[in-house]
């Protein structure tokens, strides 16, 4: 199987972000998406700590740590960028002014429920951050994750067993094996990698996949890690 690397998932997801979209990239894996935005499209990256119009990471020896994204990465700004405070930033999020939120996930359910903030044993020091606001407010939630956990358990499930971040919020799921869309309580498979059959994938999942009429191969170029 030609499973995609995390960077390849990021690349593939980036191709689906249209010109002019306003996009929030969650910390961790989703931040990789910023490295692969199509250079011919203007895409406005939002960070919940109060920035719009983020460009590439800062380079050089003395980064400006007052110009960070929500993942504590010092970033540059594009012409047209703006700063604002947290109430305005979440006005954007909660009010539906963010087109796409890219989030990591521990589990996604058939109904589009998202669990991405707390592990089964719970944590003494939980970290929800802005994930629940994004899940509830962004117009589209693109999840980025490996389809199976390290122990082989599917992360795409009938019902989430982990504490939810949001219910019915996930729009699309970009994984190392397939791209899936949540449509009216069903998971539609849109792309699948070479080397695994639909039926083999289906056999590993507890949910029934709906096959998109336009099902095609999930591919990404080789990328430096």
């Amino acid at each position: 199987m030609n499973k995609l690397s995390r960077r390849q998932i990021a690349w593939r997801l980036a191709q689906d972000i249209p010109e002019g979209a306003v996009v929030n990239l969650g910390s961790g894996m989703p931040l990789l998406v910023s490295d692969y935005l199509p250079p011919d499209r203007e895409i406005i990256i939002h960070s919940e700590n109060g920035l719009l119009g983020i460009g590439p990471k800062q380079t050089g020896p003395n980064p400006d740590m007052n110009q960070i994204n929500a993942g504590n990465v010092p970033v540059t700004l594009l012409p047209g960028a703006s700063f604002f405070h947290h109430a305005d930033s979440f006005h954007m999020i909660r009010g539906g002014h963010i087109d796409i939120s890219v989030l990591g996930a521990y589990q996604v359910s058939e109904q589009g429920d998202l669990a991405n903030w707390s592990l089964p044993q719970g944590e003494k020091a939980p970290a929800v951050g802005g994930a629940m606001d994004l899940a509830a407010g962004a117009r589209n939630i693109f999840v980025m994750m490996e389809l199976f956990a390290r122990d082989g358990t599917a992360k795409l499930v009938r019902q989430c067993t982990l504490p939810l971040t949001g219910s019915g919020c996930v729009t699309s799921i970009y994984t190392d094996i397939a791209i899936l869309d949540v449509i009216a309580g069903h998971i539609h498979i849109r792309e699948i990698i070479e080397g695994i059959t639909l039926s083999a994938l289906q056999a590993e999942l507890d949910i029934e996949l709906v096959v998109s009429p336009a099902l095609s191969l999930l591919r990404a170029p080789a990328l430096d890690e």
Partner: protein
Amino acid sequence: MINKICPSPEEAVKSITDGAVLFLGGFINCGFADDLLDALYAQGTVGLTTISNNPSVGERGMTRLLQDGRISRMICSYSRKPGTSLIEDLIDAGQLALDIIPQGTIAEAIRCNGAGIPGFYTRTGVGTPLAKGKEHRDFDGVTYIFEPALHADFALVRALRGDRWGNLVYDKAARNFNPVMAMSKAFTIAQVDEIVTPGELSPEHIITPGIFVQQIVRSRKT
């Protein structure tokens, strides 16, 4: 390339159809998008509902629409039009319905719309005729009323400068309701006196980030 710049006020208001609900920035006669309102007048649109602080005081824009009976419902805090009996006459003729909402409640109810909040509790108006029929609720022994979010199809705002991303800055007290309405869920059309290149407005000084603005058009030379 993102380009929200529209060639003319006439083009900008084309999508506004009969019966539309409009947020109109402005206070007294300061900071109204008069070029957009004049274009709307010229277009012949009827049956409008407006949400603004007051019927604008000048002779253009909102005044023309009112005079010609194009506005069938006006939601405002201050409905008097000094020196004229226009509003009273329209009401007498059954041509205008009026809703009075306190000024700060209008502002916050529009902010609620933009911020994904269905309404808010306020002490403003408690014990007055404007609280009649509204949900009352006590918090820590103090009585509040619930004011629902205000919704509109379009927001017509006036700014000083803007760029093709839709970023806006305003001119002094002409700011008033404009940024709050721009930040609503409505389709926001901004009339600006000057169009600049992205980056000319400092990221620290932008009042309305461009994502809140759908179209931007330069004011006519006056």
